[in-house]
Structures are given as C-alpha cells and as structure tokens.
C-alpha cells in the first residue's frame, strides 16, 4: 500500500469526521434548566437567613417572596447574569441573588450554588412550576445583594422552593401550587461512576497479563 492512497483515504475520513464534528459542536451551547417547586416555609427556613425588621416594601396581599437555594449538581455559572427565571407562562421574573451564599467547588470564579429570591403572587404560583435556567447564552439583569434579608415579623409572605422532593411525596393540600419537578434525585451518587472505568482498566490490565498478545 502506497502512502499516497493511504493519505487520500485518510484525508477523506478526516473531512467526513470534521463535517460531523462541526455540525454537532454547537450542541454544547445549550442552556440548562430545572423546575422549581414553591411551598410554604417551615421553621428551619428562618435558621439560615438573616433576619431584620419589617420590610419597607409594599406588597399586595396576594404577593409572596419566594426564597431558596439553587444547588443542583449540574449548576455552574461564571456570571450571575447567566441565570433567568420564568413562570409557567414563560414570562421572565426578575430575581435577587444572595452574594453571601455563593459556593464554588474550587474557590474560583465559578458559582456552583447560590440563594435567590423573587416576588410573585398566589395566582402565578397556582398556575404551575417556575423554570430556572442558566447558561452562557443567557444574559439577564438580575439584582445581586450582599445578603437577602428575611423579616420574621411577616412570616406569611414568604415561600420557599425546592427542586429535590418528588411530587408524589408532597402533601398537595398544604401547597399553594401544583408541583412538578424534573430532576434526578440520584445525582449525588454520580461520583461513584468514576470507579467503573477504573475497574475496567484494572480488568484489562489483568487480562493482558494473563493472556499477552
């Protein structure tokens, strides 16, 4: 086999490969999202928040302040503007982000967990779950504060959200909205998957030792 024919075949294969590659490559730039479940606050809610005096803001009787922690395992942003919240009808809702709650796995500029709050009303909550999106292509004007204050004297205006609980576990009678969560509750065990390729490598090692080519 001459080098020329090999090279022709190789060049064709590489061109085919590059075509497939460039067509598919933009798929990386997709936004990720999670549905948020809104529920009444329990006693522990006030443990981890900074408390203060009565709010000076004027809220309508049916309006609620929803506070919660975004710590989805896949959550990873470099800029707080790369997040957005939508209600069930697709309208964007402005969010406030708690700077003190930023958690980074490596103390770098990446944020892997943060607390957010937003104002909504009972009617919107009843209509369905909220969708929280993040990704490099999102550019929202979010408010970042040092700490989201919570006013214990007005407990009933607060709601919290969670993305953890499955709908069937929820007591709907106590909830102000129908709940629908699409997340993987086994996400924490994904780290164990690293052991599988390691086992395979050692298996290959043993096989090749026992049966050298």
């Amino acid at each position, binding site marked *: *086999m001459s*080098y020329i*024919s*090999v*090279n022709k*075949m*190789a060049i064709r*294969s*590489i061109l*085919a*490969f590059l075509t*497939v*590659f*460039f067509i*598919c*490559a933009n*798929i*990386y*730039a*997709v936004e*990720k999202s999670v549905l948020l479940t809104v529920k009444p606050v329990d006693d522990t809610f006030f443990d981890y928040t900074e408390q203060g005096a009565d709010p000076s803001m004027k809220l309508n009787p049916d309006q609620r302040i929803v506070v919660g922690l975004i*710590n*989805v*395992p*896949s959550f*990873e942003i470099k800029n707080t503007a790369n997040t957005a919240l939508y209600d069930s009808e697709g309208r964007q809702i402005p969010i406030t982000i708690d700077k003190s709650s930023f*958690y980074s*796995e*490596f103390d*770098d500029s*990446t944020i*892997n*967990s943060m607390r957010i709050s937003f104002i909504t009303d009972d009617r919107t909550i009843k209509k369905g779950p909220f969708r929280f999106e993040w990704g490099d292509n999102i550019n929202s004007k979010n408010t970042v504060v040092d700490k989201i204050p919570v006013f214990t004297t007005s407990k009933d205006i607060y709601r919290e959200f969670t993305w953890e609980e499955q709908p069937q576990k929820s007591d709907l009678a106590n909830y102000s909205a129908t709940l629908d969560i699409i997340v*993987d509750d086994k*996400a*924490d065990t*994904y*780290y164990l*998957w*690293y*052991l599988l*390729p*390691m086992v395979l*490598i050692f298996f*290959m*090692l*043993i*096989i*090749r*030792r026992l049966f*050298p*080519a």
Partner: protein
Amino acid sequence: MNYLYGILSQYLTPLTSPFFLLGLILSVDIAFRKLNKLTHKVLLPLIFGCGFFLFYIVAGKNAETAKWLGRLNNPLFAVLAVIVVPAIFLPRGKYYKFFLILPLLAIILAVADIISQILASPEKGFHWFLIRPGYLIAAVAGIIVIAQNFLKLDKFRNFTRATVLVVLLFGGFAFRQNYTDYKSMIERRQNTTPDIMNISETTPVMRFDNRLVYIPSAPCRFASDGGYVQGCIMELTQRIHQINFDKVFAGDPSEVSLLAIALAALLSVTVLAYIGARWWCGWICPLSTIGELFNFLRKLIGFSYLKPTKTARITAVTSGVSLGLFSINLAYLYTKIDKEGKFMGCKIPIYPFCKICPGQMVCPVASMADSSYFVLPGMEWLFGFFKVGVVALTGFFVIGFMTSRRIFCRFCPMGMFGGVFNRGAMLAIKKDPRKCNGCGICNEVCPMDINSIQKEMVKTDVSCFDCVYCARCIDNCPQDKCLSLEFAGKRIIESDFTKKMNNG
C-alpha cells in the same frame, strides 16, 4: 488569541477526555495487532474518533453526565492524542514531515499567546511567560516531537527530562495562565514565613474548572508557587483519605463534590499510568531528574557505582510500601484531630507523607521558592517522626543517587503505582531469547539494576515491576533486534547494533 483559544476549547473538548486518549490507543493497539492492511490500521482509529465525538455530544446533553465528563478534561490528554500518539505511530516516510507542521503550529501558537498576553498586560515590564496551559503543553510536546528527529536516544531522553523539568519545577511562577494569575502568585510570594507543617499558600497553574491535574511520578506540589500540576499520586491518595465519608453518605454537597473531584483525578492518573506505566519515572519525574544530577556528579568525580545487594533492594521496596501505608493512615487520622490539632496527644500534619518525602525538600529549593525553603519539623510532631523521617529520606535520596544510581526509585511509592502497570498495559520490553548471547550489558547499563532481562531465556515479554523504560538496555544491546520497546502493539525502538556501528 482569546477568541482562538475559545474556539479551540469549545470544539476540541472531547479530545481533552482521558477516554478519548485511552480509546484511541486501544484502537491503534487492535489495529496493529489484528489488522494487516495499512488502510484498515488508519481507518479503525478514525472510526473510533468519530464515534467518540458523537458519544460525547450525546452525553453532553445530559447535565449530570456532562459534569461527570467535564471533571476529567485535561489539555494534556488532547496533546498526547493529537501530537504524541501520531508521532509514535505515523510511518517515517517522506510524508511524515507534513505531520511535523502540527507541532510547529503548536509552538507558534504558544509564542503568539505569550506575545499577546505581554501586549495586553496593564503593567510594563517582565512578567515571566504568561501562557494558557493548553498552549504550553502543546508547545512542549511539539518541541519534544520535533527534537526526536535530530537527537540520539540518550540525548533525546535527557532533552525530554530537562524540558519537562523546567515546566514542572519552574512552571509554578514562570508559566502562569494570565496576568491576574501572575499577580496573585506574586502576592502569595510576599509571605516568606517558613512553614513546614502546613500547606503553603501556593496554587498550581493547572488547577481550574473544578479539576485537579495529577501525573504519575513525583511532580511535587511544593515546588515554587505550587508547581505546574497538582502533584503526585501520594498527594492524591492522602487527599482521598481525608474526605469525610460520613458527610458523603449523608449527601453533603461540598464533601460529595470533593470526593467526585478526587475520584475524577484518580481516574485520570490511572489512565495515564495505564498508558505510560513507569515510563513516567524514567522520562518525566522531576525528582529522579534531580537525582540523576547527583548521579552525574558521581561520574564527574570518577567514583564507580555500588551495585545494591538483593537485601538492599528488598529493604528499599518494603520500606517504601510500609512508610507509604503508614503515612496514608496518618492522613486519615488527621481528620480525627481535636481542636488543639492533636490526635491522642500527637500533632499530625495535613499531608504526612509529603512531610517526609524528599520531593518537598528538593523541589522547592531547586525551583527557588522564597517561601518554601525547608525548615525541619520539631519533635512535637509525632515524637519526632517527621524530623527524623525527612532527614533520613533526604539523605537516602542524595546518597542513594550518588552511590547506587536509582536505588531510591525502588523505595519510591509514587513509582510503585506506575510499577503496577508495567506488565499488561500499553508499554512492554520485548526480547527475542534466540538472539541473546547473555553478555549482561542490559544489566550493566540499567539504572535500576534489573537482571531479569539478561536471565530470561524463554518468555518474550521481559517487562518487570522496577523497569522505568529508559530504554538504555535496548540502546546498548549488542545483538540486532534482540531487545525492543513496544507501545500498543507497535515496536517503537529496537536494538540495532550494526546501524549504531555504521553511524559511528
């Protein structure tokens, strides 16, 4: 350059996966062993490449899988797959020079990145070489691949060792990622307080995006400003032992992420060890390169080396295993210390093995870290275990290399990890017993004093646990085609005494 780097980072992400490199080499291995036609040999890895890209794209659609794969990404794998593997396997015909454009391009891109970062720097003056890790590793690999065409094996090995030593040892301050990274490193260096028992405030260059980058052998993280990579396998093992598994099982997100990052790093380093086994010790390890300088000093003085006895060799191995295991247990006990920093009245440092490892003594001094000059730990640290240990092992390191070549490498626990992969992985020393005349030159030139290659007269695979794949035995064998080095089914070096004689 930023735009170009962004494009490369986005489109070449699958190449930075260890699975791509491993799969590529395994497919090449199968192609060279099982297939006869050259077209098929080229086609199989290409089919694998296309398949892997599609797999990666599909897997990336799932957030969890994308993050799982992302923790493994490392530009080193891409460089090995794109520059080093083709350099090994491409036939050395007249078309090989077209391939050399690729490493040349890598060097040009690296220089362009340095210049663009200098021009964009807000402060005038010399800031060492600000360069992104991907460009630097590609350029270093490119330099080595090009140099291989001009240098004889012995010189090529020394050239590779010296080049890698510069990056691993001086990379911590000489090759920072960008100006901001460089300035924060300068800020950290203002602290000149000698501190032996705590981790210095150093940050390796390649520690980013929720990933830790380790390589087999001993790239000490205590080299100046954290060195270039995170460290050796012993540092990683101690790190894993300090993870609070109670919290992990309780689902604590920060502890789970620490474990995930550590396991990802362990998987990456396992892939590298499977591919290179103990070749990393013979060609890359900065500790052994520094040790070789002591060996060179011995030759310069004119002393002949001492052959270690069988007892000495066994003692070195068992001491290495015992001390390694003991230190790992101490690392676990560190998690049990009380508020005074003691466990059962004893003070234990955060990384116990690092505190007795000569790497922490030698590498910082060699890389001129102002804040890392060692001070001896006091007797209050585990009844003087670390004080005695560090003096004894540093002494063993220096005296061992000065008198008995690589006797220290038999002790080295980092090297032992690579030794596990010496048989059955990708690299193998092969021998044709019919051509061996039993002269024993392979044993004489071997820095590890391995005599099994000389003695073996039946089997063809003569790889053994201690071999560091320096290939001196092959280079010096007086019998043509008697000894050879195989990588993934391809014979890459073989003894050719006739050619050597003809070339003078």
